[in-house]
């Protein structure tokens, strides 16, 4: 599997929260040759099952990476212009941004700014409010009314670009990058025996309400879950703690949202295989599907593996592809070892009171 071309395809696919059908279809297609069984559920979660060897029941290990991306939504038509609400973009990247509007057909648009020639000095220092911005389709009001409705989605238009070395830039790396890592993991598993059933889930709605994490986990009832999501890359202005240099390997989450023993197991695999890795301390909510998954169905042992990107939630997320292949190596090696005894070994034990008494 070529990681770069897969990521390019996925990054350029359209899949806002709530309208993941198109990207779900693409992911299902990519999963097909790597799994025994692939399905898309009613919510548009994509679920690929790759069965392990040995007799049933086998441990069920879920990999989950979310499919959806942040979006804008048309809220009203203002003559030929569209007003919109935006979900999770940094509003500052939207000014001067090209966008795609998914009306009755795909339309190209621009969110422009008033020229600086006309601005007061103070305005040049202030960003416009999102509610003051409009999308300009370059079409007349009548055509716009025919082609666009309230509720239509708009995404930033940002082609995938190859930067120096193994670095690339584009939109929706959050979280198509992790979906790519999940596919790369399954690709490596083709050459490995694994005792567990691998349930690969590309989940919907993470950027909105965590719908996919809830509904897919409920369906699959896994024994263990490993959530894959992006994390913060080091860049000017980013806090030193909690951001990670691009190219420094998978970033393993540590904290109450994550099972300590499962996390230790992943660290051990990195050490054994000499895969560089980083630890991300997450004191409470990890802000990922892991937060939802951990408390489902009476509790699920959950780990979090991240890949660092710069400029998160902008049209130009930047990453280092070496981290994707390293993540795949970590996960495939872990899955090759994930047998029933590993799962059982994660259980919490009461202290041996008899022993203490003696």
């Amino acid at each position, binding site marked *: 599997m070529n990681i770069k071309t897969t990521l390019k395809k996925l990054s350029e696919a359209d899949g806002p*929260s*709530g*309208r993941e*059908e198109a990207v779900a279809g693409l992911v299902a297609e990519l999963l097909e040759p790597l799994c025994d069984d692939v399905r898309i*559920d*009613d*919510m548009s*979660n994509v679920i690929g099952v790759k069965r392990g060897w040995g007799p049933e029941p086998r441990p069920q290990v879920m990999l989950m990476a979310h499919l959806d991306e942040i979006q804008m*939504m*048309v*809220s*009203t*038509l*203002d003559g030929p212009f569209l*007003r919109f*609400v935006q979900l999770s973009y940094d509003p500052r990247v939207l000014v001067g941004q090209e966008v795609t509007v998914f009306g009755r057909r795909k339309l190209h648009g621009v969110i422009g700014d008033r020229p600086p020639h006309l601005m007061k000095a103070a305005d040049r220092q202030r960003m416009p409010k999102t*509610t003051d911005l409009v999308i300009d389709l370059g079409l007349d009001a009548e055509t716009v009314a025919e082609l666009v*409705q*309230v*509720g239509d989605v708009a995404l930033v238009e940002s082609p995938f670009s190859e930067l120096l070395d193994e670095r690339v830039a584009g939109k929706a790396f959050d979280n198509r990058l992790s979906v790519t890592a999940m596919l790369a993991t399954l690709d490596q598993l083709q050459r490995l025996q694994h005792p567990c059933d691998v349930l690969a889930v590309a989940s919907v*709605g993470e950027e*909105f*309400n*965590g*719908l996919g994490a*809830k*509904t*897919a986990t*409920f*369906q699959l009832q896994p024994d263990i879950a490993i959530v894959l999501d992006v994390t913060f890359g080091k860049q000017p202005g980013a806090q030193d703690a909690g951001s990670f240099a691009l190219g420094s390997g998978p970033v393993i989450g540590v904290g109450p949202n994550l099972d300590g023993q499962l996390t230790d197991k992943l660290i051990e695999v990195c050490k054994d295989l000499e895969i560089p890795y980083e630890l991300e301390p997450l004191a409470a909510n990890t802000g990922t599907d892991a937060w939802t998954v951990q408390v489902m169905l009476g509790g699920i042992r959950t780990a979090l593996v991240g890949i660092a990107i710069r400029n998160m939630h902008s049209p130009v997320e930047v990453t280092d592809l070496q981290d994707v292949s390293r993540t795949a190596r970590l996960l495939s090696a872990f899955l090759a070892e994930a047998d029933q005894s590993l799962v059982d070994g994660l259980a919490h034990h009461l202290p041996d009171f008899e022993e203490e008494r003696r």
Partner: protein
Amino acid sequence: MKDLIHELVELYGPSGFEEPVRKVIQRYVEPLADEIRTDAMGNLYALKRGDGSGRRIMLAAHMDEIGVIVTQVEDSGLLRFSNVGTIPHKTLLGLRVRFANDTVGLISHDGGIKAEIRGQKLPDLGRWFIDVGAASKADLPVGVGDVAVFVRPFADLGERILAGGFDDRVGCAVLIETMRRLEESPHEVIFTFTVQEELGVRGARVAAFDLAPDIGLAVDVTPTGDSPKPDAPLAVKLGAGPAIKVADRGMIAHPRLRQALVQIAEERDIPYQLEVLSLGSTDAAAIQAARSGVVAGAVSIPCRYVHTPSEMVAMEDIENTVRLLTAFLGEMGIG
């Protein structure tokens, strides 16, 4: 229809205390349903069996309304209170409230009316009180933990009507009327009157898990953007038809369900509009996330001045909502 709404809207039923509302609704739906039951939280389920060829559809409207709860009693006989649901801070001054035992009181705040006149910032909720006309603590007919709703008499303005609590008694009325008009359906439809929506869609969460429907549809009110200079652009207008929800803060409607509703509205010439709301949510958010996921959406009745003591809705929007739902349930549609 107007009489039914009038009756429902003046009932006492704050979140967690929906019984008076449930009793009245039960009286209406009992003769229309094949089965009727309630659950531990107080949700009311009225089931109409289909012909077996369709799906299991949950239709939800919430019975509860916002209100206030007494938190502290002062020696002077004044009552301090907290909110039940999101209450209209801006319009509290001078508002009347009614307790379950019909005690009526008036809301004011420390410092009297002057602060308000000087255009100062509204005081925190802790500085507001209810005066029920008691001369002292000993005279009080109500106490800590008692809950009151806003007094909001129904006014018939002709085509448009005015009252508090249309959120969501008007949805309850729509469900009842739809049930009346629905003669044949391929679907098994569970008309669900939920509790505690205003506290975070709590009743619907339980109901959807219990029912495990294939499709869920909430019927609720939605704010309109037709006032001068709205803060946020909202396309929904009063009188322009039921609003088929695209998204709100808690849910993005399933695109296939939304499309099915749009299609049937167009086929039957029922006016409709599309709704994108960047705040608030409905029971559909809870229904969607139940179990392995439910194909969910919502139909909203446009309502001006939501969550104030005087909400306004249009009768034609209500009628068209009933028409839309009846048509949708009567056909295989989304199938």
